């Protein structure tokens, strides 16, 4: 009932608003009012006749203005007090039509099948958002079959939110705590449902695996400026080692400073710089006991007394920590091209040290030197009316830019870079997408007949269906 009454009041206010807008301000010259056609019922210029009408009109305006302010305050109060709960989600299912890496075998160390040509649920998310006044919370659950059936929390945060108030010069402000997107760069924070290509660039999968981490974040936005700063565990949800845990007491500090401007109608720019500094962890080893080992020195398959070798135990080694950091830059330029749609050009680059947590986990203690990672990506997408889109992206990532290898008698630098050239075409219908993408990969995982590092073929053609609800 209160809502109906409130809506009625709002309707009255909206009807009244144009009238108020057409009214002269309270301190407007009387002549302006008197010359308004249809007001006062007379075009006479006699002040004596205009005076009383002007006064009553002024009173009426003041009365309506007060009522408007009261209703506006009431509306703000109701908004603050009202609970808003929203249920949403999306599903992404993939048909990996052809992947060159596929074999009808299993991985001997993990027991997982090596075949990749399959149907898979890549992401199935259900999200609940709730807000009451300044407090908001969200919980998002991910179900997928990437490595067998899996259900896990992907986003769970509690926030305090203040809206931007430009008339007072105050920025919007959000303070969040929980499991949230890592505020680094552009693509890490880009929604899975919006991203035009199947997956993020290799460097982001390596440096920020899973894109989500636990921590606390402050986010501010004022006009075209946006700023994010977070303290996080430093072990994202997709990390190969200690995912969603934190083996060190110090927290990683991550942040991004960006701008978002509409340079001219149909010409939109967004860019920023990001940083990440933190502490990595090298696990120590437990103590070992003395062991006897059989070494079949004559290869006869029989145990002989002279083939038993004693290997002494060793004491435990302590765990160690190391410094890691990253610096990144990102940009996206969107140009409206009539009648096709938006042309979007995007690029991102990162230079980091000892930060790889998802591909070739960086351990400078074990390697005996710092591991410098360098990566970049750039690409473009073009909407073709509201029904389709085409796009491409090239990305390259080197987990160890200073790597070298022994080739016979020579120690030579080696390119251990991973790169992907992706081409995609997409059909769109409302909240649904059908996306076909071909990824041409290069990697350092194979050995050529000459013994040199070469690409282990794993190009893939994938069809994805997506629905957002």
């Amino acid at each position, binding site marked *: 009932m209160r809502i109906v009454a409130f809506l009625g009041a709002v309707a009255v206010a909206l009807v009244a608003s144009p009238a108020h807008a057409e009214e002269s301000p309270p301190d407007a010259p009387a002549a302006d009012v008197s010359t308004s056609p249809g007001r006062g019922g007379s075009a006479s210029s006699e002040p004596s006749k205009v005076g009383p009408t002007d006064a009553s009109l002024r009173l009426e305006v003041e009365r309506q203005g007060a009522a408007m302010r009261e209703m506006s305050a009431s509306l703000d109060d109701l908004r603050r007090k009202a609970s808003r709960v929203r249920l949403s989600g999306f599903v992404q299912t993939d048909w990996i*039509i*052809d992947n*060159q*890496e*596929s*074999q009808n*075998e299993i991985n*001997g160390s993990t*027991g997982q099948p*090596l075949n990749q040509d399959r149907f898979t649920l890549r992401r199935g998310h259900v999200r609940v958002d709730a807000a009451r006044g300044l407090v908001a919370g969200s919980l998002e659950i991910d179900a997928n079959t990437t490595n067998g059936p899996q259900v896990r929390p992907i986003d769970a945060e509690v926030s305090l939110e203040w809206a931007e108030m430009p008339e007072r010069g105050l920025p919007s402000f959000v303070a969040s705590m929980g499991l949230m997107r890592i505020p680094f760069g552009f693509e890490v924070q880009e929604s899975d449902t919006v991203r035009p290509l199947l997956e993020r660039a290799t460097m982001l999968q390596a440096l920020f695996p899973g894109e989500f981490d636990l921590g606390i974040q402050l986010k501010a936005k004022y006009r075209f400026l946006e700023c994010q700063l977070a303290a996080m565990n430093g072990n994202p949800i997709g990390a190969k080692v200690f995912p969603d845990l934190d083996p060190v007491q110090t927290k990683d500090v991550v942040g991004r400073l960006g701008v978002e401007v509409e340079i001219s109608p149909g010409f939109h720019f967004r860019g920023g710089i990001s940083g990440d500094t933190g502490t990595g962890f090298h696990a120590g080893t437990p103590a070992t006991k003395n062991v006897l080992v059989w070494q*079949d*020195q*004559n*290869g*006869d*398959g*029989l145990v002989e007394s002279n083939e038993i070798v004693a290997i002494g135990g060793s004491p435990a080694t302590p765990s160690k920590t190391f410094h890691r950091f990253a610096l990144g830059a990102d940009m996206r330029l969107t140009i409206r091209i009539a009648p096709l749609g938006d042309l979007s050009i995007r690029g991102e680059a990162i230079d980091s040290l000892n930060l790889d947590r998802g591909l070739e986990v960086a351990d400078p203690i074990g390697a005996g030197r710092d591991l410098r990672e360098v990566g970049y990506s750039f690409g473009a997408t073009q909407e073709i009316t509201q029904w389709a889109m085409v796009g491409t992206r090239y990305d390259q990532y080197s987990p160890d830019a200073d790597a070298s290898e*022994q*080739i*016979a*008698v020579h120690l030579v630098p080696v390119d251990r870079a991973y790169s992907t050239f992706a081409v995609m075409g997409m059909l769109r219908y409302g909240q649904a997408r059908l996306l*076909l993408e*071909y990824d*041409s*990969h*290069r*990697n350092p995982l*194979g*050995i*050529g*007949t*000459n*013994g*040199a590092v*070469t*690409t*282990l*073929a*794993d*190009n893939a*053609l994938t*069809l994805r269906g997506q629905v957002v609800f």
Partner: protein
Amino acid sequence: MRGGRVIAVLGCAVAVFEAAACSNGVRADTGDDAFMRIAGAQFFRGPMPEGSSAGPSVAQLSLINNNIWAGLADDPLSGSLSPTATAAAIGLARDVGYWIVPAGVPSVATPGDPSFSATAEFSQGIILGSYTLVVRAVDTQGTFGPPASQILVAESSPTDAPATGDLVVTLTWDTESNLDLHVIDPSGVEIYWDNQSSQPPFSFDQSDGGSYGYVDYDSNANCVIDGLRREDAIWSNPPPSGDYIVRVDAASLCGENMANWNVRVVVDGTAIAQAAGVALDADTIGSHGTGAGVTALRFSIP
């Protein structure tokens, strides 16, 4: 009809992409079906390329022992290559493929020559007999040199002494599963764990001159793991003439994913037949008594 067109279009797209990417690196292949496998090396399916006299050569090839057996692991081989070599290609002649091992730093013994070393393992399904180990040096251009070869002799495992008898049928497998050997002799009698001898139970004439077979052991029975993973059907005297059928029954995998098995028939010390296969969880379904299992092989005694 539309579905067929879609599939045809996708098939064409795959073909085009594959053709465009045919030179994109080496194919992933575990080489698990090869008789010889080398840990950490790159497998190339198909015969090893013929070498050229202009290519680099193998200066030295060292083996600890030329005798191998089914399931042999950690068998080291090493050597040195001529100075221009950057890799060694290693394989058994007539195997399904070969392995590439990058060359390493020179050894103290041959300071000017790149070295190579590898650890080989041999399949459970390897058949007794002689094999030729071929090693070729490869240079940075991918040119293969002339072969260096050694003869390897596949024999029974020294830790698993062969059963003796005029006719021995042996089943071995590679995981701690419960597999059973069934042998049907020419008279139709099936010997296995529940009927361990082909001798009639109430034969009053124990010296009738007949020849009877028996199963020597029921390994991993009821998943009580004994680690033997072997069963033999033995005829101590000349076996009856006629046709024999050998079956392998997977009673239980005892929690293992699978079991690779091997059946070998030896008559008077000479192997006359051999077969290999894989037992999966589906094979454990059903009865495990008379007539159970899959037929591994048939043979005849004249």
